[in-house]
């Protein structure tokens, strides 16, 4: 479903993504992890056609990212980390605008939007009367997730999707992506909340400085590296243990 070959992105002399290669089959939920600045968001932006790769290529649903970017975009959904929306539209106006961009008939779009409103426990009055600028972060995130799934994409990229969601919405969301995967959707899930990734994803890819560090099943990777949890493995691989020691030393400076 997703085939990435030697994907590279350079900004001037800085290499953000360095010859990344991996394959993701249909119906798999893959955790895409890395510390800040590792190149996760840049990779996702390349795979969704927002950034042009400097080198390498990728095919998604059989469409080449370089030669058929519009076809790729038709088949993917993306929840960006920023959760950006047009603040001066109402939630309903925003979702209808997105549906129209995917050429979804208006009646089908309305039905679909109502299903998501019920799922996310949103009030229809809020969605029709209030402008998005007045929504809470969590409500706005629900609208962005709905906008990413409205056109029934075969591949969905989530970049920090739980940011701002309350506990109930997060539980529902996790169940939703597991159901989507069972129905044959391919999910790429980028997050810093590693215990959620460990529970939801059947495979994780950890990158740092644009390069792949490990790729495999979370339990197998944890066992192979002798780590207790995925979080421990992550800190082992990305130099987080040193930061932990620094934090302890820094905290000691507060002692009277």
């Amino acid at each position, binding site marked *: 479903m997703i085939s990435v070959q030697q994907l590279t992105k350079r900004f001037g002399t800085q290499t953000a993504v360095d010859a990344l290669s991996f394959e993701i089959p249909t119906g798999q939920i893959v955790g895409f992890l890395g510390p800040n600045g590792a190149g996760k968001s840049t990779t996702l932006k390349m795979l969704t056609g927002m950034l042009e790769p400097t080198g390498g290529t990728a095919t998604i649903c059989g469409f080449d990212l370089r030669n058929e970017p519009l076809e790729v975009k038709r088949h993917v959904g993306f929840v960006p980390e920023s959760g950006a929306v047009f603040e001066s539209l109402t939630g309903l106006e925003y979702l209808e605008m997105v549906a129209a*961009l995917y050429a979804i008939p208006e009646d089908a779009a309305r039905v679909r939007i109502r299903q998501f409103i019920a799922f996310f426990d949103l009030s229809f009055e809020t969605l029709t009367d209030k402008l998005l600028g007045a929504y809470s972060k969590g409500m706005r995130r629900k609208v962005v997730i709905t906008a990413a799934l409205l*056109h029934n994409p075969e591949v969905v990229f989530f970049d920090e999707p739980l940011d701002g969601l309350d506990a109930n919405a997060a*539980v529902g969301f996790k169940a939703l992506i597991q159901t989507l995967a069972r129905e044959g959707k391919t999910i790429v899930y980028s997050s810093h909340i590693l215990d959620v990734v460990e529970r939801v994803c059947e495979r994780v890819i950890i990158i740092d400085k644009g390069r792949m560090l490990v790729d495999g099943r979370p339990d197998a990777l944890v066992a192979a590296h002798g780590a207790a949890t995925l979080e421990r493995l992550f800190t082992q691989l990305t130099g987080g243990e040193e930061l932990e020691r620094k934090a302890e030393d820094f905290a000691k400076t507060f002692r009277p």
Partner: protein
Amino acid sequence: MRQPAAIPPLLPAPVAGRSSNRSQGQVLRRLFLTLFLRGRTARGLRKDTAPKSVGSKLGLVLVLYAAFGLMTLVFRHQPVFVFSLYLHGMTMVFLGMFVASSAGEVLFNAEEPDILMHRPIEPKALL
């Protein structure tokens, strides 16, 4: 705490040939006009209190321009050079403000790519 509602059923796969009633160009033009009318950031506003008419907004702009234009009456007994200096000065001020606000809102809007660039929009429709 309330439990989340049932997971929405999956949509059937998109059917080729079926389309929305509006073209992408129409959708984006309507979006542009709405954002022009209401402003790009409208924190705290409700839809019913947001401006509704492009005509009334343009009218307000024209009234503002007319007010600044009428200030030229102050120069009616002054030399023509001073009068033209004022007119040119005001033109430059308005032009500068327009360019600065447009650049801030349209050219350098960092969030807009996150909303539109991953959607299957034909480049000519975006233009």
